[in-house]
């Protein structure tokens, strides 16, 4: 049904009520109206027949006596009846005898066709043909015609009335209904609203009002009870959930506890495992790697050394007469001593920066000390540059052992050790053989009277010892002021005037006499002693120059040789500037001589350092030119003032055409680069003539003067007023 849409009850009810009321009203009104209209029609026909009878009665005489006028007069009496529009009296023969027509009516009477006796109902008229009878004889007929205007008016009136009445009634019905229905619909819509609220908010604590008709009260009651049950169940569920949650929390706490315990156990186990592992690889007393671990490290070192073509040393160290200490002072003291020895060995290794190592290795094998058991220790010295380095470390250890070991009770114990040295790969190429040769070397050291070290190969011993002695003596020489500077003048070849002095180091050994720089400078370079020696040289040269200046000589520059290590030294510039300021010498009177090889070791850094020195005002010259790489590119980049042609070229100038060509080329090159050219080692007049001829700027050498002590060189120094 279209009438009942899915709308609210209120609207549906209203529609139903309107429909029913409307239909009922219409039905009632239609019946009443029909009845009214029918009665009206009846009265109309009755009226018509009455009129017809009156007229027929009154017109009999007129007909019989053929008096038309009278007949028409009689008919005209119909004027008083408003709805009769026309009337006709017919004679017995059917002829029109008299007519009547209401003025307003425009009907054409003659068009009327007389019909049979009785009524005839047209669209807008009602007509009646009635016989005129007198003395039981029909003497004619009367035709009366009435319009239905009144009927229609009546009908219209009725319809209007129906519409008005229906409208008003419906209006009143709706008004009344809308007032009355609220008693039914309001509770329903309240319930519906409540239900929506409940389903949206899930709030089961709300309750419906109980009002309205009985069914709705039952409904509200039922709804409330349902809500109550839901709420109850909800709270029970909540309680249950809470209980479950509590249970879960308790279980979780228990689990956590158990977990912690498990973790603790695991940690402990891991600790004990670590401990076991540690014990497997380390010596418990000294915390040093044990024999097993050391062998592993040693095999690794072998692989590394084999791969990179390195050599390394293994020391086998045995404490001398340790058994005696153990026996007399007890094992506990022995253990304490072993710990102290370990500590000292570690210190000795850590401070062994004397060992020159190659820098470029990616993987590095650390120095390792291991305790083999008892009083035996093994040291792995990886990455040796020279075999002698191993001896140097051994000497240090032996020397460090010369200091007493102070025990807990401040007792001092003196103990020495014997060291056997095995060099990979010469003395053995696998772990066992290396250890074995080291052990043998150690016994050899014991045989030599203990407190010394021995290489496995006998020949190494003397050589290494010599170098070690020199190294040790160089250290001492610095302290004992055994080094001294000799000076050699440089002159301008053209005017033979002195232009500078080169300072050259000399070592006057108390026992061996004069030692040549060629003998000790490379060793000093290797050991790094060149740094303090070089520093002494610069400082001494500057002070000497200052002395000369104060003695009244014209200031000239003193040249000092720099080694590669010095140039790489981080604080070279600081050292130089300190020396200058200490001696109060202007930088222009200091000249630093470098060689190509010293620069080439680290060209970028060396160039930067030299530029900084040059910026201070110090002169830079390139020594021994022609023997090295002679890269023109670097030559151009270096901040040089002069080139020194190596003495080897000068020596054979007059006999070797090649050397002469080289000298000429060097001179040309230097002049092209705007550099001063100095010839070294000039010994003969011919050489000087050659150099002069080829426009060499300066010269130094025995022809002029050999290097002389400072006091002897003053004869060459220019007078201040000269």
């Amino acid at each position, binding site marked *: 049904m279209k009438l009942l849409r899915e709308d609210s009850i209120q609207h549906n009810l209203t529609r139903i009520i309107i429909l029913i009321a409307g239909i009922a009203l219409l039905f009632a009104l239609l019946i009443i109206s029909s009845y009214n209209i029918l009665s009206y029609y009846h009265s109309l026909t009755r009226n018509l027949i009455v009129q017809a009878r009156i007229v027929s009665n009154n017109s009999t*005489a007129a007909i019989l*006596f053929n008096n038309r006028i*009278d007949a028409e007069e009689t008919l005209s009496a119909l004027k008083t009846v408003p709805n009769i529009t026309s009337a006709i009296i017919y004679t017995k023969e059917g002829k029109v005898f008299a007519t009547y027509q209401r003025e307003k009516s425009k009907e054409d009477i003659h068009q009327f066709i007389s019909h049979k006796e009785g009524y005839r109902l047209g669209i807008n008229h009602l007509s009646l043909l009635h016989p005129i009878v007198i003395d039981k004889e029909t003497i004619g007929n009367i035709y009366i015609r009435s319009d239905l205007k009144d009927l229609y008016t009546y009908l219209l009136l009725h319809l209007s009335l129906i519409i008005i009445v229906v409208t008003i009634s419906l209006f009143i019905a709706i008004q009344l209904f809308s007032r009355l229905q609220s008693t039914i619909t309001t509770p329903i819509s309240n319930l519906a609203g409540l239900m929506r609220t409940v389903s949206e908010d899930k709030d089961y604590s709300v309750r419906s009002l109980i009002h309205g008709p009985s069914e709705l009260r039952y409904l509200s009651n039922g709804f409330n009870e349902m809500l109550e049950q839901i709420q109850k169940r909800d709270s029970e569920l909540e309680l249950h959930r809470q209980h479950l949650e509590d249970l879960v929390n308790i279980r979780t706490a228990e689990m956590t506890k158990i977990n912690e315990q498990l973790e603790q156990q695991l940690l402990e186990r891991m600790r004990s495992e670590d401990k076991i592992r540690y014990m497997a690889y380390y010596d418990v007393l000294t915390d040093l790697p044990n024999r097993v671990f050391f062998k592993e490290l040693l095999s690794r070192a072998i692989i590394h050394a084999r791969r990179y073509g390195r050599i390394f040393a293994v020391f086998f160290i045995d404490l001398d007469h340790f058994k005696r200490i153990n026996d007399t002072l007890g094992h506990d003291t022995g253990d304490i001593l072993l710990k102290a020895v370990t500590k000292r060995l570690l210190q000795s290794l850590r401070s062994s920066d004397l060992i020159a190592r190659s820098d470029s290795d990616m993987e590095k094998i650390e120095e390792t000390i291991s305790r083999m058991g008892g009083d035996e220790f093994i040291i792995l010295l990886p990455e040796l540059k020279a075999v002698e380095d191993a001896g140097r470390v051994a000497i240090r250890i032996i020397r460090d052992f010369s200091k007493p070991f102070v025990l807990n009770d401040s007792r001092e114990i003196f103990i020495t050790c014997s060291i056997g040295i095995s060099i990979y790969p010469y003395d053995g190429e696998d772990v066992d053989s290396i250890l074995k040769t080291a052990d043998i070397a150690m016994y050899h050291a014991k045989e030599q009277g203990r407190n010394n070290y021995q290489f496995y190969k006998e020949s190494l011993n003397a050589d290494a010892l010599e170098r070690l002695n020199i190294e040790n003596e160089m250290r001492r020489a610095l302290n004992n002021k055994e080094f001294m500077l000799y000076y050699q003048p440089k002159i301008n070849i053209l005017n033979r005037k002195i232009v500078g002095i080169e300072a050259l180091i000399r070592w006057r050994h108390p026992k061996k006499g004069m030692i040549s720089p060629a003998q000790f400078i490379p060793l000093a370079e290797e050991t790094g002693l060149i740094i303090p020696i070089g520093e002494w040289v610069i400082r001494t040269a500057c002070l000497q120059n200052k002395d000369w200046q104060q003695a009244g000589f014209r200031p000239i520059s003193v040249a000092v040789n720099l080694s590669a290590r010095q140039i790489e030294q981080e604080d070279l510039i600081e050292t130089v500037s300190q020396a200058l300021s200490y001696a109060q010498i202007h930088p222009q009177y200091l000249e630093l001589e470098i060689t190509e090889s010293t620069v080439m070791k680290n060209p970028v850094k060396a160039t930067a350092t030299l530029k900084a020195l040059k910026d201070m005002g110090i002169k830079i010259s390139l020594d021994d030119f022609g023997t090295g790489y002679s890269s023109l590119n670097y030559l151009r980049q270096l901040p040089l003032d002069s080139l020194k042609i190596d003495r080897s070229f000068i020596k054979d100038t007059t006999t070797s055409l090649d050397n002469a060509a080289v000298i000429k080329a060097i001179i040309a090159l230097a002049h092209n680069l705007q550099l001063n050219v100095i010839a070294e080692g000039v010994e003969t007049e011919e050489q000087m003539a050659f150099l002069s001829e080829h426009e060499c700027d300066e010269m130094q050498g025995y022809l002029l003067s050999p290097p002389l002590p400072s006091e002897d060189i003053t004869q060459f120094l220019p007078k201040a007023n000269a």
Partner: protein
Amino acid sequence: MGNHLYKKIFYILPLILFCTTFFICQDVLPQRSKPKEYQVKAAFIYNFVKFIEWPDELFKDSTTVTFCIIGDDPFVSEIDTIQGQSVKGKVLEVTRINSIDKAKNCHLLFISSSERKNITYILKEIKNLSVLTIGDTEGFAQQGVIINFFIEENKIRFEINTDAANCAKIQISSKLLKLARIVGEGTK
């Protein structure tokens, strides 16, 4: 067939009436028109019966309505048309009388114009009888004849002396009176 006859009569009737009137006015009554006039008059007389009420005792035992003619009979054969016709449930009978004495049983009495000199006598003789007197002579009504024909505008009309009717204890329907010219005895 009968219908046709009626139609013919009604077509001819106006012509007849016209001619009659013409002759009366000219005082020249052609022979042929006279019977037509009286034919109409005869019909009129027959119809009068329908509107007249005689005292009841008069028709106690009678089943006839007697129409008497006194004097020269102007109707001649025209009157035959109404002879024997029934009216008000009675039969109309036409009788010619030569003496007023014989008028005792008459319900209607046509007094011919020939009796113009005897009119007073005749009326005196029937004074106590309920006879509807009818004439067609000018002045009769005023003299006491109840219904008197006259011609007006070529139409046959009649006048009624209501006093005379009252005297004769004859009631005349108002419908008839309406059609008639009312005269009294003293109106002359």
